[in-house]
């Protein structure tokens, strides 16, 4: 199963919804598309919805951390939401949620960023 990526803009927030499996093979495309979306849309804050992401490895962690650093350096925030137990194991091991904010679902994530859903 490959990765499908859906980008959406809600007010000033870029919503990134991932579905399928995120590995090294998919990571390069995702990074390029994501960076292009951030550049072409006038948005800053980002929500990454992982509800339908069934698999992720350290290459996926690399992409998340890479975007987090760029978004934070530009003075914006990134929130990850709806993480499945499978993907959660990897995030816990990496200590990712010590630096990136986590929300139970997209509505909560939007609220955290000050957008009424």
């Amino acid at each position, binding site marked *: 199963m490959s990765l499908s990526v859906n980008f959406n803009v809600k007010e000033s927030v870029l919503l990134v919804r991932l579905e399928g499996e995120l590995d090294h093979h998919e990571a390069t495309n995702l990074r390029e598309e994501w960076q292009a979306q951030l550049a072409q849309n006038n948005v800053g804050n980002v929500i990454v919805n992982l509800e339908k992401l069934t698999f992720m490895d350290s290459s996926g962690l690399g992409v998340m*951390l890479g975007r987090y650093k760029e978004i934070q350096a530009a003075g914006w925030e990134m929130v990850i939401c709806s993480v499945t137990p499978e993907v959660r194991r990897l995030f816990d091991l990496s200590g990712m949620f010590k630096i990136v904010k986590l929300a139970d679902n997209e509505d909560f994530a939007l609220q955290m960023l000050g957008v009424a859903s």
Partner: protein
Amino acid sequence: MKNYMKVEFSSVSQNESLARIAVASFISPLNPTVDELTDIKTVVSEAVTNAIIHGYEEDADQKVILECSINQSQVEIIIEDFGKGIEDIEAAREPLYTSKPEWERSGMGFTIMENFMDQVDIKSKENEGTRITLSKQLTSTKAICN
């Protein structure tokens, strides 16, 4: 139950998912738990990615060998490449270490392998290749076999 398989594939990134699926279906008769299956798919992905990115530096004309054997509830997976080898194994095992910081790697590959498996053995020689042996005792079948 004893079983063994060996798969050889080109060092292209499309084959990372092939390797995960091959191992996942091969061990399915052992009825692994969801967590065990996730762990094993993740470590296979890490080791195969390492072979492609680091061993062969994305040279698609090379070959990666994946072996898997099961003995009762014991799973052993070997991932081997004949690429450039690991210069410093101790450094490679360090969390967050990466030899390719410019590639947006997280440096978590070996840390994940060591946390998700019972045992990780790394054999590597410069310009000869790397052979990673990963083993794990599945809990689900241990209970049934007792």
